[in-house]
């Protein structure tokens, strides 16, 4: 598997993605910090280790597919795509601008975006369709869908959760970025969805629970998913909303709050990833 970053630790890449996220959000004066930062290791593990992809051939038919069902985490998705070489990092500065490929929520016109998303609850169904289609074509690619835990409140997720095991889709992996916080507050208060892992088990999925900020653990869980035959895998990744920036952690206040210049400076100082530009 070609990986230009094989000499760099996944943890370092995730850290770097956080810096890019904060800069992107500040430059755009829009976007969702909390749920982007919580997913940094998940996307790092997928795009820099797990997935069979080739940034030079974003439409390669045999590639693994990725769907960011929690589409509001687009900034960390774009950071990962840029860092992986799908487009130049400078393009991140066009996020949310007129005519940009980097829309507020992911759009398939953007290289590396396999499915448009944004309206919550829809990605797993689409991933299920992709997994069915790839199997029908005898392509051994896998489909990874990242969902938020708040997103699990959408009924369609459970329609898809019911259907995927029926079809024995072992080429489908759902990863829940379980950061326990949503726009209005703690998920437990807004609408409790725990026990998350037990719900997926009850729907006949192969379920793994991991520390969502441990890239190696996510990589290993994805490998275990590949070994599991005859049913899909759900990886419940325990994460911290706003991870890496102390004042953004574990609070709904940074679900979609504005990252001002001051905030960016403080955040980047904490992250210590690069000079403030």
């Amino acid at each position, binding site marked *: 598997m070609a990986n230009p970053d094989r000499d760099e630790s996944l943890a370092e890449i995730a850290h770097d993605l956080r810096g890019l996220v904060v800069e992107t959000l500040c430059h755009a004066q829009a976007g969702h910090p909390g749920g982007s930062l919580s997913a940094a290791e998940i996307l790092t593990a997928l795009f820099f280790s797990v997935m069979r992809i080739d940034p030079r051939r974003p439409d390669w038919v045999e590639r693994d597919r990725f769907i960011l069902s929690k589409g509001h985490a687009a900034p960390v998705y774009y950071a990962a795509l840029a860092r992986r070489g799908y487009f130049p990092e400078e393009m991140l500065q066009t996020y949310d601008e007129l005519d940009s490929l980097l829309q507020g929520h992911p759009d398939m016109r953007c290289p590396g975006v396999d499915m448009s998303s944004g309206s919550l609850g829809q990605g797993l169904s689409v991933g299920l369709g992709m997994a069915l289609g790839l199997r029908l074509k005898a392509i051994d690619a896998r489909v990874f869908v990242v969902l938020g835990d708040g997103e699990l409140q959408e009924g369609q997720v459970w*329609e898809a959760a019911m*259907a995927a095991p029926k079809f024995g889709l072992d080429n489908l992996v759902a990863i829940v970025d379980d950061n326990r916080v949503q726009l209005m507050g703690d998920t437990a208060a807004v609408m409790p969805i725990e026990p998350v892992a037990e719900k997926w088990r009850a729907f006949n999925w192969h379920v793994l629970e991991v520390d969502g900020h441990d890239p190696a653990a996510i990589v290993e869980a994805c490998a275990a998913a590949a070994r599991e035959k005859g049913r899909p895998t759900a990886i419940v990744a325990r994460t911290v909303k706003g991870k890496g920036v102390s004042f953004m952690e574990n609070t709904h206040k940074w679900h979609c709050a504005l990252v001002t210049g001051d905030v960016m400076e403080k955040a980047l100082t904490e992250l210590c990833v690069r000079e403030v530009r």
Partner: protein
Amino acid sequence: MVEMVALRDAYGHALVDLGEQDERVVAVDADLASSSKMSLFAEAFPERFFQMGIAEQNMTGVAAGLAAVGFVPFTNSFACFATLRATDQIRTSIAQPRLPVIIGGAYSGLLAGKTGKTHQAIEDIAVMRALPNMTVVAPGDGVEARKAVFAVADYGAPVYLRMTRDPSPVVFEESYDFRIGRAALVREGTDVTVITTGVMVGRAVAAADLLAVEGVSLHLLHVHTVKPLDVAAVVAAAEKTGLVVTAEEHNVIGGLGGAVAEALGEHRPTPMKRVGVADVWSESAANDDLLQKYGLTAGHIVQAARSLMEQRAAPTQP
């Protein structure tokens, strides 16, 4: 004796023939394939038929995923559920990324087998027509239904395909050249233009026959593709007589009547009457009773045409 064919029968057989020709064609169902006759495809190609259960939102998303990896999926439910239960899935996962999914709507209009307002669809055209990238096709008879199945599969973009349950008169010849977006001139006439979509074309032909006895000549244009509307054909048909009746088994708001009024309002303002459901919920009853009560018979088209002609004869009267 007019030959009668149910669109759903034509649809089911056409899907099988399409499936034999085109391996990209797959089908997803929300537990209604035997009603729509998609079941014929399921029997012929079990490996390309995916039963998703009573879960239209998931079914619609699955179709988007299948399309994203190169298939041409047909979804299946009653028209009301296919378009309304899963509207946001159609919008976000199909229409916005412009994926070539065919949204199959069975049992459209009022004739939903005595099931009543919950299972009738009188707002589906309006809702689907408002979605950018969405094409709306409502075949008028079995011949068109068959031709439409092949045409939409090659269209390369999202299509809402509106079907009906019960037998309808066959209007078109097998040799008829059906093209998405091109309206069909069914009859040349001089007094009043009638523009139809879906199975109202058969009732409009009957209306034309009734009026011909009185010496009134209807100019009959059939708009199987409500979107994109064949504006040139609609304008030309309006110019032919200067009076336009639209006829659809759908609410008078937002469907064919709305589309024609929009086009004529901009290009060729023309006195109009819209035959359709008068913005009310219907009920469960026998087909003929429903069509009579909710104003969808040949007689209602006749009345609308006469009324326009009377207005023209005495333009100062209200």
